[in-house]
Structures are given as C-alpha cells and as structure tokens.
C-alpha cells in the first residue's frame, strides 16, 4: 500500500481527440454508402487488416465495442433486450450480442454520443473469427435477421482454435491452418465485393495493427509507475481504438501521441487519482452502465490500474526470459508480400493474452499474478460477468489461484451489458466492506 499523500493530477490532453475518433468511426460506418464505400461487420478480434486490402473506403462496425456503447445507454439497451427476448432469444446469451441483435430487430442505430438513428445500416459482408461460442453464433444469427429484412449478407469466418503458445511456439501446421483460411478469405472478399485487392494496402494494415497493439502494451506498461498516470475508467475510452481500428494509421498515430503524453505524466509525477494509496486491478469487461463504481473507489484513495482484459484484449505481450511479462517484440521489418503479411499477422495474433484462458486457465492466473507483481497491485476485483461466457470462463479458478498466492480478491457478480443482472447498491456495500477489511477508510463523500 502506498503512502497517504496527494499527487498532482490533470486531464489528458488527448482526450477530446480520442472522443472524436470514436464518434467518427460509427458515423463513417453509417454513411459509407453515401460516399461510395462498403460496410462490413465483425468482431474486435477479427483479422481486420485483411479487408483493408479492398481499399480505404471499406468501413467496419465492430460488434463488441458497439454492444458496449449500447450498454452505456441503458434506456436503449433495455429496448434491445426486450426485442431479442420477444424474438425468442434467452437472456443468458452474450449481452453484447443481444444488444447488437436488438439493434437490428429495432432497426435503429446508436452513435457513440447516444444519438439513436432510425434504420440499422446492414453490412455488405461479414468477416469474423471464431474463438468463443458466442463469436461463433453471433453473425450467423445477425445474418438471419438481416435476411428477414430483405438483405442477404455474405459471411466468412476464420476458425482460430489452435491453442495458446504459453511456453512453446505453436506448431507450423497450426499457423498454416489459420494462414490458409485468410488466404482463401482474400479470394472470397474479392468475389463478394467485386473489388480488386491491393497487397500493398494489406501490408500497411498488418504493420499498423502490429504497431498499434504493441503501442497499447507500451502505454499499459507505463502504469507500473507510482502514482499511476492512467486509471482504468479512462483507459476504457482509450483501449477501444485498438478494438475498433487497430489496422488503421489513425490508431497508430493516436497511440503514439498518447504514449508520449503518458510518458510525460510519469516524468512529472502526474496521477490519475490524486489521493492514490491503494492499487487494484479488475478482470473482464465492467458493467458498462455502472462505471461510477470506479469513482466510488477513488473516495477510498483506490486506483484501478487496468486489468488483463484492458491490457491484453488488444495489447500484445510475451514473457521474457527473465520471467517478466512485457510488450511483445516487433517483427524485424514490415511485410512485403501477401504471404509474408498473412503469416506475420497470424504469428502476432495467436499470442493474444485474452485468448489464453480458452485453453489454459492457469495461463491467465499466471499473467494476472505477473501484473500484480510488476504493477505493484494490492488487490484484485474479479467481475463474475454473466454477460460474457467467453471472458468469464474459468474465472473462479483464477480466483483460487490468486487467493492461493496470497492476493486479496473481491469477486462480484454482474453483467457487462444487462443492467438487470447488476446490483449497484449491493455491490458498493460489499466493495466498501472489502476496502475497510483492507484497512482503508473513506477519504471523502
């Protein structure tokens, strides 16, 4: 636990630029056809650099972040859930997925500022990957729903279930398995869009993605500093660029600027939370409609530094020989050919930390413990997130691993995107108890 002192704090200078980028992203998707462009749908983990070879006028709506945006606006979320349940889907499914389907069913589209527009803009094609069961079904159903509205949307899915390279690199045939699907996917993209494919654009996009995801890991590493220059609530608005547009030059440029600003904050001792005295990390997506829990924590001098989720959903990491968890080393040079680009992005992507627990829950525990040690963390708050089976799988095992290692853990039940499954007052009461059991007292009301 750090000392009870006041640190200087200031707003991030780059904040508004990030906000504008996010708003533009969803507007670009909406208006793509007006500008002669194409729209495609897929998840944040899809290989988004591949469709980039079709041209600069191809815009994506990324399903999970859009589901999270919907979740932030609880009135609209409730309508989406009513619509999906009325259509016969159970409320136990992925909350993001239900938000997305609800939006199609309602035929409404929400922008990042909460503006709801009539008419859900259907994609021209779907480009997705399969890592969890919900990802596997999400766009199959989205496609049915679009078809019921009269639009046939072609879909291509890449299966990435090849295991996680925790200690040993993945065998070549596993890399080839994904590589071949991507290679075939380029032919498919040309066929369904009628557009030519530019390998130079592909190489640029792959290199952008690799740099953006590495830069985000660098930025997260800066949060090892005491006081922490960033708090997790703010990081949610920053990491999202990596989920939306990791392959685009705007994302790389934004993260370069952000990294420089955060380095400057560390140099000058600028804190995210002025009275930081207790450092926590969380896990999985937060209950998006209730981010005020982070502000409540600050009243106890608690800063949430991030999580394996915030750091590793998009950021790319590897264990060094000395056992420390650190940003993954960049490949020696930018790819020059289609084959080189595809192999490079596959090799880069299979190391994604947030894929580890699908295969090895102990790998996730190990990574969380590394964060606890390297980021000087006092306790871990685990969100038993009923809204995401993918990221919540094995979370109770992770809790056991942390407790056995002597780390104080506060588990709480909730849902990232369905407010009916989150008890704000009850959670705050238990959180208060947890902090007080850690010897903290409320510093302000």
């Amino acid at each position, binding site marked *: 636990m750090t000392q009870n002192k006041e640190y200087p704090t200031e707003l991030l200078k780059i904040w508004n630029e990030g906000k504008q980028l996010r708003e533009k992203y969803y507007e670009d998707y909406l208006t793509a056809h007006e500008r002669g462009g194409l729209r495609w749908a897929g998840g944040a983990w899809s290989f988004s650099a591949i469709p980039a070879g079709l041209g600069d006028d191809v815009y994506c709506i990324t399903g999970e972040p859009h589901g999270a945006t919907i979740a932030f606006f609880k009135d609209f979320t409730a309508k989406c859930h009513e619509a999906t349940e009325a259509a016969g889907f159970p409320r136990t499914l992925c909350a993001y997925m239900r938000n997305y389907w609800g939006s199609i069913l309602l035929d409404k589209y929400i922008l990042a500022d909460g503006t709801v527009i009539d008419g859900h803009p259907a994609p021209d094609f779907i480009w997705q990957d399969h890592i969890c069961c919900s990802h596997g079904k999400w766009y199959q159903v989205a496609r049915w729903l679009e078809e019921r509205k009269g639009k046939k949307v072609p879909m291509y899915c890449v299966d990435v279930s090849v295991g996680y390279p925790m200690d040993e690199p993945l065998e070549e045939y596993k890399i080839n398995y994904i590589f071949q699907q991507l290679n075939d996917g380029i032919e498919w993209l040309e066929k369904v869009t009628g557009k030519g494919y530019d390998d130079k654009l592909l190489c640029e996009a792959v290199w952008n993605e690799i740099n953006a995801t590495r830069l985000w890991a660098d930025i997260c590493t800066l949060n090892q500093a005491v006081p922490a220059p960033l708090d997790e609530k703010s990081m949610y608005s920053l990491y999202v660029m990596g989920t939306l547009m990791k392959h685009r030059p705007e994302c790389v440029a934004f993260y370069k600027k952000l990294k420089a600003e955060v380095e400057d904050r560390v140099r000058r001792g600028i804190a995210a939370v002025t009275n930081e005295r207790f450092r926590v990390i969380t896990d999985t997506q937060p209950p998006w409609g209730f981010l005020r829990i982070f502000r409540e924590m600050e009243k106890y001098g608690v800063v949430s530094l991030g999580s394996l989720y915030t750091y590793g959903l998009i950021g790319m990491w590897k264990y060094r020989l000395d056992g420390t968890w650190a940003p993954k080393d960049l490949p020696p040079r930018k790819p020059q050919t289609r084959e080189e680009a595809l192999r490079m992005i596959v090799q880069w992507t299979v190391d994604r930390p947030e894929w580890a627990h699908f295969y090895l829950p102990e790998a996730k525990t190990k990574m969380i413990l590394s964060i606890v040690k390297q980021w000087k963390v006092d306790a871990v708050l685990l969100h038993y997130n009923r809204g995401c089976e993918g990221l919540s799988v094995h979370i109770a095992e992770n809790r056991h691993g942390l407790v056995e290692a002597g780390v104080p853990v506060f588990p709480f*039940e909730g849902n990232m995107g369905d407010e009916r499954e989150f008890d704000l007052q009850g959670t705050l*009461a238990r959180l*208060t*108890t947890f902090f007080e*059991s850690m010897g903290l007292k409320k510093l302000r009301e």
Partner: protein
Amino acid sequence: MITAGVDVGAKYVKTVLLEDAKNILVKANGIVEFDVLKSATEVFEKALDSNGLKRDQIAQVVATGMGRKTIHMKPPINAGEIVPEVIADAKGAYHLIPTVKTVIDVGAEEGRGIKMGENGKVRDFVINERCAAGAGTFIETMARALEVGVEDMGPLALKSTNAIPMNAQCCVFAESEVVTLIHSKTSKEDISKAIHDAMAGRIASMVLRVGVEKDVALIGGVAQNPGFLPPLKKELNTEILVPKHPQYVGALGAALLALKTEAK
C-alpha cells in the same frame, strides 16, 4: 470507560453497552420499523435507561449493520464511526471465541462467510448475492406459507427424519415448492426440515468459497434456530460453535471497535 455498539440490521436493531472492554452491561434489541432512526433510538435509549445511563456517559458509539449510516453522526445516538458488518462480526466472534477461524453470520437479509486472519482480522469474506433464500427472511416467508410461527420452524424440523430435496436458489420458487408439498399432504415437520436443509446447503456452498477451517462459529439471528444447526454441520462436515446470544455478536464487535476509535 463505557462504549456502545449498535447493529442496525434489516429486521432488528441490536445494542450492546460494554464497560472496560469486557463487562457487557446490557444487551437490547427491537424491530426496525419504517423510521429506522426512531427504531434505533428507542432501542439505544432502552439500553441506556436500563442502566441509568445518559448518552454523554458513553465514550464512543460505533454503528454497524445495513442501516448504520442512518445513525452516523445523527442525534441522539451520534455514532462516531461506522463499520461494515463483516468487520464487526469478525471482531465480536474473535472476542468470544479466540480460536475461531471461520465465522458464518446468517441474519434476516444476508448470509456471510468470513475467513479469519490473525488477531480477529478479516482475511477473506463472501456475502450472498441478491436473493433472500440464504437468509432468515427465507424461513420467515416459509413459516407464513406453513401457517406456523417462525419460532416453531426449528423445533418442527428436528422432529422429521425424512430428506426432501428443495430449491433454495430462489425464495419465490421455494415458496411455490412448499405450496406443492402442502397440497401433496407432506407433513409440516418434513417440509420444515426440507426448508432448513435447503438453506443450510446454500449457506454451506457460499462459505466453501472462502474455505472452512476450524474453529467454526455460527452467529446472527438464525443461529438461534435449532433446526438450522444440524443440517449446516452436516453440509460442512464439521462441528460448529454457537456463542450465547449469537444475534448480538455484531453489536459486540462494534462496541469493541468503539474502544479502538476512542483511543485514537
């Protein structure tokens, strides 16, 4: 020096006045009505009156329980500090049973499992989420369905030797199961035992999340129910100690913590 602990629970207010950290001068309780401050004040003043004491003779008052904020710095009780139930429970239980390693508190609205660290400190804890099925209100609701007094539920359960499985994940579903059992002419004894077994199963599965280590203590209002202890022992496969007046342990812990805050 006299200190006081006031536990403003979901159903009852409990007060303990403590002299020199060891002599319990008085214990008092009363039902929490709509005006929580008024209910707490009545109980607190009853405790003072029974010993001929005035508020200014109490060095410090610490409040706990879900309604603790209602009396924080508010006259006439003017509790100087508030502490969460888990911390007060741990303090009180450790004072009464210094060898305790696991504390189970089952009150009207919440069930809690506490893993104890050194010197009565909390190492880990778990609290039931959202549904009253793991708390005393569950038994009260079922007593209404059976048309018996809540105080009769435990003795009734002890008369049964049959095991009937019942859902305790949801109070509403459980009540509908009880209604079905009533219509199938199952005896009140068997239904009462089924209710206690189900609740013990739910509490045990919750407590096992933080681990069960001897000595184990059961506190809170439900600890007075003789029908609850046997199935809980069976579920956890361990002996369980119940201190005298288990419903006052949280208030006692608060009174002990008041000594510490007064010394600051």
